[in-house]
């Protein structure tokens, strides 16, 4: 039974509505960031980019960007490595504890992040470690490397293991097989996992809140200003954070497109 034409139209409209629902708040933030007034009311009376100039001149904002970037970059690299090996154990090999392993990996994703952040804070305290942005990297990894594992695992499921066997039959060592066969085959998964982990770490708030100590990431600073001591820079810094994410996404898509074109040109 095929859906009727009118049903399709209704569902299509529903889909568009869902997208509007997702992006409406960001529209408000973007308008607020270019409003001249210190305290915002709609309709906006005068527009200006002065808050952006202020943000770029501010040392606080520079520090926020640097710390957020440092955390996200290191999390990306480490979680790509952890996720690559994790995915092999998750999907590629049949071993005795595989099903148990799959469930263990899912646990941190099914866990409230704020409570995880607090638990880690207490743990670091018990170990005598003072929380800084470095401990935030660890807390992000606990949540993000299971996610990268899942993403790479999707790729690893369609893995043709006879390719590895062929390489082995021809005398390749385990390490050579990893480097020449396994890694290139899983590469698309590894790269999209890296993209996810950068963006998720960049925007993460509940884990950072409790594990960065005196250092602040962008989402944390925004939250602090939202609940007390509002600053007109909040929408601007929010927009800056969004712009970086967008830039990374567009860049990644452009590179992916370029690679595909080069590959096609070769054939």
């Amino acid at each position, binding site marked *: 039974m095929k859906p009727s034409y009118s049903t399709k139209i209704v569902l299509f409209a529903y*889909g568009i509505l869902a997208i509007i629902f997702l992006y409406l708040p960001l529209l408000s933030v973007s308008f607020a960031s270019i409003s001249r007034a210190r305290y915002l009311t709609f309709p906006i009376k005068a527009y200006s980019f002065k808050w952006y100039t202020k943000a770029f001149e501010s040392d606080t904002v520079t520090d926020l960007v640097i710390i957020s970037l440092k955390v996200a970059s290191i999390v990306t690299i480490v979680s790509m490595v952890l996720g690559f090996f994790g995915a*092999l154990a998750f999907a590629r090999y049949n071993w005795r504890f595989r099903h148990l392993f*799959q469930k263990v990996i*899912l646990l941190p994703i*099914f*866990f*409230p992040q704020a409570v995880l952040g607090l638990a880690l804070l207490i743990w670091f305290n018990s170990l005598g470690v003072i929380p800084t942005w470095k401990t935030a990297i660890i*807390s992000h990894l606990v949540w993000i490397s299971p996610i990268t594992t899942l993403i790479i695992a999707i790729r690893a499921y369609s893995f043709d293991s006879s390719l590895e066997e062929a390489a082995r039959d021809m005398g390749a060592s*385990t390490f050579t097989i990893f480097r020449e066969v396994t890694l290139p085959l899983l590469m698309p998964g590894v790269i999209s996992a890296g993209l996810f982990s950068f963006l998720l770490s960049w925007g993460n708030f509940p884990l950072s809140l409790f594990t960065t100590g005196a250092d602040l990431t962008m989402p944390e600073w925004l939250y602090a200003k939202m609940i007390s001591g509002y600053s007109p820079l909040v929408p601007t810094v*929010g927009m800056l954070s969004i712009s970086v994410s967008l830039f990374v996404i567009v860049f990644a898509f452009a590179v992916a497109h370029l690679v595909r074109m080069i590959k096609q040109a070769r054939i």
Partner: protein
Amino acid sequence: MDRLNKRIAYLSAAPILILLLVFFVAPLLVIGIYSIMPQKSFSLLAMPDFSSYSLIFVEGYLKSLFWSLVLAFSSTVILFLLCWPLAYAMAKIFNRFTLIITIAVVVSLFVSENIRLFGWLLTLMKGGLIEGLLRHYTGNGFEGALYNVPIIIFGLVYVYFPFMLFPLMQGIAMIAEDTRQAAFDLGATRWQVLREIELPLAAPGIVVGTLLSFVLAAGALAESKLLGGQTVIVLADDIETAFTYGQNWPLGSALSMLLIMIIATIAVFGISRVDIDTIMGRKRS
């Protein structure tokens, strides 16, 4: 050769398992030990007295727990009803549009949740996008729509939308078209097909989606704080207060344990019923 593969499997699993052991399992154990320490203790070696757990029942913490569960439950139900038609259309009806919605939803996930909630604050407050423009063009304003219970549920629905949508879509994609068709041919009504064919066949996706939304919403903090003001105190709020301003780690730990136990019961019950290989799209061999 098979033995070599097994050895590689154990070695590949090791790094992430060690990470989770040291920074996921161990912290939770420490929380478990703190929860039975005497009040305001900062040591793990004091005489355990379980006083924090009795405190939960004396002071108003059960009320926060109740609110957390009510908010999580209502947002999960609403999410399921909202997402089902869209997930259905994405899995079965749309072609290119599925990709567009998928990208739009995933990209929205990368914006920090507090920025998006702040955006709703600007949209819904008095003088915000909706009220401000309405008053400007019609002359009639209204008090902002913020700081009440429905708006917290709205915030939860908004933030956890993707966590329901994608698993549902995945589940619905597992419904074989032939089976539906056969049921219709045998004279089943639409309602019967939904109840007897579609819901049971999509069950793995439904289980994962509802679990994920419920669990995450039960531990959520920012929605009630940013959109709800202080109308309702949720359990995660109490936990944060106990650890930070309260400086009472045993109490915070006991409250965390309460939340963890509830979530773990639900999650373990749900995850054990689902075959992960099937959901992730592994071909059956």
